[in-house]
């Protein structure tokens, strides 16, 4: 067995942090993505422009720069707002932006933009006749969304969502730069202490590959579920 020089348990803790950051930011990104896609598809010009601005700006700036901006600037910004609230209304709140919050919010924000594009394409790919049929059955808009639009949209969105998730997973490594003890940071600390560059980095790389492989399998299963009823023809096309 490889001797991890006592860093084994800490690496596992770090892996847990990585997974937590990844899953939480995925949730945030999915919500933001759905909102962005709806804004882009809505007839409201202001909403449309706002969503376009968001996706363009976020996709034009490196994730690390955004993360540093939010981590170092976020606290100052939040303090300004809470100070203003205090002096204006006497509301006394304190919100602290730690590495974890900054990491999750930044990654969620960045991938919200990418998810938005994926969802927008997927919504547009749903046959409008399907929605008309729903309306003809007297379904409410909500019911149409839940029973018809969402399941069919997911079928088109899943490959893109899967790709985004893989990229997101790798992006979580950046939280180590702002000081969160994810597995990359712990491996880097261990490397500096022991002068063994590969002993810790290779296991970490393997964990990333493992998570990626498991998610690939999961996405394939979901894909199968959302493809029910579309027959083999579609699988040939993919």
């Amino acid at each position, binding site marked *: 067995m490889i001797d991890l020089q006592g860093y084994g348990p800490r690496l596992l803790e770090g892996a847990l942090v990585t997974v937590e950051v990844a899953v939480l930011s995925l949730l945030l990104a999915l919500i933001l993505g759905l909102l962005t896609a709806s804004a882009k598809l809505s007839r409201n010009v202001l909403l449309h422009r706002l969503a376009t601005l968001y996706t363009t*700006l976020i*996709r*034009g*700036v*490196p*994730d*690390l*720069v*955004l993360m*540093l*901006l939010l981590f*170092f*600037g976020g606290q*100052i*910004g939040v303090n300004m707002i809470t100070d203003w609230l205090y002096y204006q209304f006497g509301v006394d709140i304190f919100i602290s932006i730690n590495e974890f919050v900054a990491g999750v919010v930044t990654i969620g924000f960045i991938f919200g933009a990418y998810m938005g594009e994926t969802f927008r394409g997927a919504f547009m790919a749903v046959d409008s006749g399907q929605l008309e049929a729903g309306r003809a059955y007297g379904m409410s808009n909500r019911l149409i969304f839940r029973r018809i639009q969402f399941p069919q949209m997911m079928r088109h969105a899943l490959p893109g969502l899967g790709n985004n998730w*893989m990229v997101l997973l*790798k*992006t*979580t*490594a*950046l939280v*180590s*730069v702002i000081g969160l003890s994810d597995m*990359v940071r712990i*491996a*880097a600390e261990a*490397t*500096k202490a022991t*002068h*063994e*560059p*590969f002993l810790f*980095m*290779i296991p*970490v*790389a393997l964990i*990333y*590959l493992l998570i*990626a492989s498991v998610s690939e399998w999961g996405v394939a299963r979901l894909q199968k579920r959302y493809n029910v009823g579309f027959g083999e023809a579609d699988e040939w096309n993919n």
Partner: protein
Amino acid sequence: MEQLNAWFVELLSNNDIFTANTLGYYLDGLGNTVSLVFLSLIIGLLLAVPLAIARGSRRKWIKWPIFFYTYVFRGTPLLIQLYMIYYGVVFIEGIQDTFLWAILKEAFYPALIAFTLNTAAYTTEIFHGAIKATPRGEIEAARAYGMSRALMMRRIIMPSAFRRALPAYGNEVIFMLHASAIASVVTIMDLTGAARFVYARFYAPFDAFLFVAAIYLCLTFAILYLFRYLEKKLLAHLKPING
């Protein structure tokens, strides 16, 4: 021009943070970022073309190692690859005494190696996909003309594969520009490194990072328009006639 100059001088004199001195840091950072990204893309491209061709080989002992390489480099974060190469070089026993140390002690070269290997892996897969998507008829036509495999590769498959790969490769170039920000983690004074320095010196996160974000945004748009122009030129024959 005079006015513009006067305005610029005025702007600089009324500003505590963006003095000529700090703008110099940003300029150096821009130089480092651009040369790092440009060099790694060029070398990566040169590596990727033969790798992509070999990746489509029928022989398993050629195909599988390349697949393994691209799988590992695309499946793990660039930051890990950078750390492995950076520390892997620094902690080699006795490297400080060799002539190589003069080059390798600067973080630039380990970073260049890491970025090159990373972009080569992505580019290999992009080209592999483009080569695989060559229409059958084109290959059959080349065979019917009696072309050898090498000639067919050079005259038929590669030119059309390059064109098909262009949009995906444009994305890869932008991805590389953004990924290069992590060079600042291993002490390189790239654009992000300059921003971190300015932040630390003046404790002004918004000025330091928003300014650098704007520079990255400009670079991204420049790349975007370059590739849009190239696509328009090189993919003109694929446009619908009335389009």
